[in-house]
């Protein structure tokens, strides 16, 4: 039985197309630790990803959309994982994955774009902070020789800021002639906007040399891994996934999304090889979805959702939740999963422990306006090479 206001953590029981925009952004820093942030744009449905099957209200709220506990993968006495997440379940069983449930950023309205802005900038309101928390995190690490690099047509808000970050995505177009490349470089040399972008693009091309040009989830996972394992390559990466806004036809759509994310994560882990033990992956979304199914086989914009933490060194195999309950009077505004954990606190603690930084300092730097949330710690075990 679950008790509200108790911080619960449950020990584990041991054992398509994601519409992933081919968007990946990376930052190079002088560290052997890796940190990957995967954003789920569109408000992913936490209640059908990590299913609170033991909550008596779940099945009736979700009706036909409820995940059948018999088909789901049991995580503990309260939660089960969506059946499409087979690889993730395997990582959970090996204590390399965990979930933080009923979590939310400080944002409490239901606009995707404002919600994503708060999640990415680390402000308390949309458009209050100009640069992204991931960029501020890069500034806390020793700078690498090469400038930061990115894999995406554009740089996502979380990575925008004073630190140079580049972008890269597989191209289907022929390579320009040397003369053209040279003259373009000269033409942009005096342009404060174009010059850094061009220099970063040249770096990215060099790093990506020989990597595949496919854009399916597993290839993107491998491509990310190939960047993160280059000797002087980037150590921080961001991947953007879309397609989570399941207002209708949720059952099949969410299953496909999760299958794709699952294979991306597995490919990333496999591609990293031994480096997986120095890598932490955070998966988070701007907010959750309504506790009840809507009238059209889906769910509408909500509040609390679930965050995923994966990696070779994470203290996984558990679901961290101060479960608020799904009874009507327990819901936020009588409709959404009530947030009981702060995403800011999770991000601050996780990033700090993963990169060997002081959690309180990270919290102050990344979330200065949130009153420096008390970081959630004890998430990552000692890393190789760390005292």
């Amino acid at each position: 039985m679950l008790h509200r206001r108790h911080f619960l953590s449950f020990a584990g029981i041991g054992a398509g197309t994601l519409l992933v925009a081919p968007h990946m952004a990376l930052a190079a820093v002088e560290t052997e630790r890796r940190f990957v942030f995967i954003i789920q744009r569109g408000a992913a449905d936490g209640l059908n990803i990590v299913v609170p099957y033991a909550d008596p209200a779940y099945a009736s709220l979700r009706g036909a959309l409820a995940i059948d506990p018999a088909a789901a993968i049991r995580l503990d006495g309260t939660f089960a994982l969506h059946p499409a997440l087979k690889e993730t379940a395997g990582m959970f069983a090996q204590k390399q994955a965990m979930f933080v449930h009923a979590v939310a950023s400080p944002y409490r309205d239901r606009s995707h774009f404002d919600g994503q802005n708060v999640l990415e900038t680390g402000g308390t309101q949309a458009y209050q902070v100009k640069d992204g928390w991931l960029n501020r995190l890069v500034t806390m690490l020793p700078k690498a020789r090469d400038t930061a690099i990115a894999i995406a047509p554009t740089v996502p808000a979380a990575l925008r800021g004073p630190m140079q970050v580049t972008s890269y995505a597989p191209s289907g177009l022929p390579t320009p002639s040397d003369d053209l490349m040279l003259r373009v470089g000269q033409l942009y040399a005096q342009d404060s906007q174009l010059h850094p972008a061009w220099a970063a693009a040249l770096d990215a091309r060099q790093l990506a040399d020989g990597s595949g040009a496919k854009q399916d989830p597993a290839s993107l996972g491998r491509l990310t891994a190939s960047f993160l394992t280059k000797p002087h390559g980037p150590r921080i990466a961001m991947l953007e996934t879309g397609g989570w806004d399941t207002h209708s036809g949720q059952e099949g759509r969410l299953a496909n999304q999760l299958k794709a994310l699952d294979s991306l994560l597995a490919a990333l882990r496999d591609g990293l090889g031994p480096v997986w033990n120095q890598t932490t992956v955070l998966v988070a979304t701007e907010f959750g979805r309504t506790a009840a199914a809507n009238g059209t086989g889906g769910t509408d914009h909500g509040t609390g959702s679930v965050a995923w933490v994966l990696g070779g060194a994470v203290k996984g195999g558990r679901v961290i939740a101060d479960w608020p309950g799904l009874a009507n009077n327990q819901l936020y505004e009588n409709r959404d999963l009530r947030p009981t954990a702060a995403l800011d606190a999770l991000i601050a603690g996780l990033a700090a422990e993963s990169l060997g930084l002081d959690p309180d300092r990270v919290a102050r730097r990344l979330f200065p306006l949130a009153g420096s949330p008390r970081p959630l710690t004890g998430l990552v075990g000692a890393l190789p090479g760390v005292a």
Partner: protein
Amino acid sequence: MPLSTELSPAAIALNRFGLGATPAPLPGDPRQWLTAQFDRFETTPPAFAALPDARAMLTAYQEQQRELRKQAPPPAPGSPMPPGKTPEQKLARRDFGQDVRALYGQAVQARTQSALTTPAPFVERMVHFWSNHFCVSADDIPVTAFAGAFERDAIRPHVLGRFEDMVLAVERHPAMLMYLNQNQSIGPNSPAALRAQQRGGNPRKQGLNENLAREIMELHTLGVRSGYTQADVTEFARAMTGWTIGGPNDDAPGDFAFHPQQHEPGTRMVLGKAYAQQGMDQARAVMADFAHAPATATHVATKLARHFAGDNPPPPMVTRLANVFQTTRGDLPSLYKALIESPEAWQPQPLKAKTPWEWTVSALRALGRNEPGALQMAAIQQQLGQPVWKPGSPAGWDDTAASWIAPDALMRRVEFAQRLVAPLASQIDARRLAPQVLPGALTPAAQEQIAHAETPASALALMLVSPDFLRR
């Protein structure tokens, strides 16, 4: 050689307001050239008119699927055949998908054709602006089928009309009704829902979907953080129930229909005002009030000013445009005139980074192309990072440099520029063309690189990716 790096008024009219200069002679009076376009705009250019009818395609397909379902053998006991999985049904779905993708490609070509040959490039730019403001995203087959028709039938006829009429046309269009799930939203206390409950149906299967209602308020009219609450969204969603797409028994299958039996009965309270109208007029009345609200005027004025006067729109200009919007009750030509009269939009430095669409269209126009020909614009825009009518979210494409001047995007343009000019390099001298399409706007550095390029092709590609050409 004059050291002029100040954009000439002609360059601003052609490149910032229009879709890019062509090798044709420059306009005499730039402002007059812009306003005169209001009379020259072609609402439905031939390429758009010639598109196959998406509605007919979809209804024929649905009819076919209904027939196939009837013929499908009953599932074997123990192994239920999921609906739509017989070989015939799968084949029909595949064919339909192919037809729709072909239609989408043809519609993108029509849009390009129109952008290359329009006698009114400024008005055409406004079509693209509104199409993005009220965007659908062609992420599934049905919306993909209607994407071109949406711009042709909901945006183009109203680009020189009233904002309110455009709102109404957009929210009634099947592409929008499907994209934001309005076609499935049913009033929980509507006759249809009550009847279903009496029959013992699952009440959750018949209910409200607030997606379109929210985005109308947040994105199409009032703007986010303009003071409405979740309760306002829900009330407006209730008012909108019944707005849907006609089925086989409706007068116009596949087109907008109002189904009174799905409409939530009762008076609605939205933003403190009671709407006692019954039926379709209720949501229409709310929308009309949204269209004329001061918050909408500011929202629209801000986006317009950002599109012409820079990523950080000058507040006095926003205020002026919002006032014109308010006093003329959303008369769009008046708004465009106010834009043309705004000194902030005529600053002689480049104010905007071109999006991939703007850049490709301006490149084709500069090279004197008057048809896309064999260039598959849908694939090109996909490669350049801005697939047409697929922004992936109802907010549309972002309109700031930070979204478009990124390392990979830049590299992609250089790659594409080289491919684009390859067949033309022997016919076009970049040294002569560059000052013509960038009148007074070509920096000496760009001139020099163009003049000293290794090959005519390199010179021409350099012109297209020069900082002067990447911005407007």
